[in-house]
């Protein structure tokens, strides 16, 4: 089926949306302050990375909304000195959004519920200044090795990696009663990655969407429960499907003490939708943000910021 046609009524400029979905994604890297910064001097990590790229003939242009994200004019950012040294991590621009919205503060305890392969985990570690307990969990043992190797190359030392089902995650191994913040970068149908994986929609089924949505609801509920009153939970997917986005928020708003709140980010976005396929959602899901590929020339994304009730 034509999966994207489901969204014709949601997108402001459907032709531009389709055209963007067919274009390959620009190459981007994220600057990793843990290794690119030199505490002893004042030089900015971003400038140091850009200079190192320039020495190799690679132009690196900071994104307007996040100067730590650089668009690079090479197809192989992995074969550069900044990569070898862990100064950068290859990461799609819009995927750098959830940790920014999470806004972790150095020293806090943070849970990344579905962490592998670790792009956002390592970004959270960087925002934490590599201080405080960062628990990176993934239920898929096979994907943990990618998480671990990314964390190590990027010099992360404040992470504990666990292999639990996030839906009934136990904090028992740790001396914390609750996390200050939690990130749910949920497993999803990945429709928004179509620019990177043109075949991603080939195996799309409504049944898979419904089944993954069930998992998402379980993980997000557990994240709200495991976060301290007043704490922040960020829910993100790389899909357009409302079943996996607003419907998940609606489900959790109905069952856990939390709220969806607005946030500022310098990207063009669309608000969360309150109606889909005959179903009405809690009005608060409007505060979530949808990112369509044509809006900022990125992949597709969904990101909501939740505050846990006091």
């Amino acid at each position, binding site marked *: 089926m034509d999966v994207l046609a489901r969204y014709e009524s949601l997108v402001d400029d459907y032709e531009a949306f389709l055209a963007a979905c067919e274009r390959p994604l620009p190459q981007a890297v994220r600057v990793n302050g843990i290794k690119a910064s030199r505490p002893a001097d004042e030089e900015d990590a971003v400038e140091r990375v850009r200079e*190192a790229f320039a*020495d190799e003939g690679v132009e690196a242009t900071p994104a307007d909304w996040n100067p730590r994200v650089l668009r690079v004019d090479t197809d192989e950012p992995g*074969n*550069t000195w900044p990569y070898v040294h862990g100064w950068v991590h290859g990461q799609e621009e819009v995927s750098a959004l959830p940790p920014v919205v999470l806004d972790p503060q150095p020293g806090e305890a943070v849970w990344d519920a579905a962490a592998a392969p670790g792009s956002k985990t390592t970004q959270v570690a960087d925002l934490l200044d590599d201080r405080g307990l960062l628990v990176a969990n993934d239920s898929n043992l096979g994907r943990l090795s990618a998480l671990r190797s990314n964390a190590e190359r990027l010099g992360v*030392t404040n992470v504990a990696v666990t292999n639990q089902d996030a839906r009934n995650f136990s904090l028992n*191994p*740790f001396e914390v009663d609750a996390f200050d913040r939690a990130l749910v970068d949920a497993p999803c149908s990945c429709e928004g990655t179509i620019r990177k994986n043109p075949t991603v929609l080939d195996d799309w089924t409504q049944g898979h969407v419904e089944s993954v949505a069930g998992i998402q609801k379980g993980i997000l509920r557990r994240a709200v429960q495991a976060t301290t009153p007043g704490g922040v939970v960020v829910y993100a997917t790389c899909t357009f499907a409302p079943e996996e986005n607003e419907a998940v928020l609606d489900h959790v708003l109905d069952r856990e003490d939390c709220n969806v709140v607005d946030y500022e980010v310098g990207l063009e976005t669309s608000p969360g939708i309150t109606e889909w396929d005959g179903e009405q959602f809690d009005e608060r899901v409007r505060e979530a943000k949808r990112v369509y590929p044509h809006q900022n020339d990125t992949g597709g994304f969904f990101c909501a910021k939740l505050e846990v009730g006091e």
Partner: protein
Amino acid sequence: MSEDDPGADDDREDDPGADGGCENDPERFERLPATADERGVEGRATRQEVVDFWDERFGVPPETFEAFTFWEKGAGKVWALHGDAPSPIEVEALGMTFLRTRQEHWKPTTDAVQRFGRAATENVIELPREHARRFVAGEDLEPEWDGDWGYLIVAHELVGGLEPLGVGLFTYGTLQSMVPKGRRRDL
């Protein structure tokens, strides 16, 4: 090469997952004792010994590691965690793989050297760019070096600073690249 040659072990690739043959539960991390007086497990390195190793071998000041705790998982693999955790703790990974102990010549990991090696003042060999390329590709080199044999921090100059690349094993005029297979690159 002699029997106790530090290169004779099979951990040229510091794959943190390759814990074959260890006697401990591989998912159980235990904090290193502060000093030998507090040591409960035979052969386990102490925090003091670990900090002294970096200081004596590479001139990395002990205060570099003030905020870190050290953990052993499996036989001899020491991990560094920024902060602390209950000991023992059963998790998949805790901080970063840091140092291979329980062998005559302790060996830092590539990641530890990249993370902490900028503070090193001794046993650091600086390579020109072309040699640095070959080193990260996993090639052995024959550089000019009249310092100590054994594990060296290998570095090169990058945008105005000396930046550690990894660990090299220097013996008999040859610098063997210890860069793990998964980290090698053709630049």
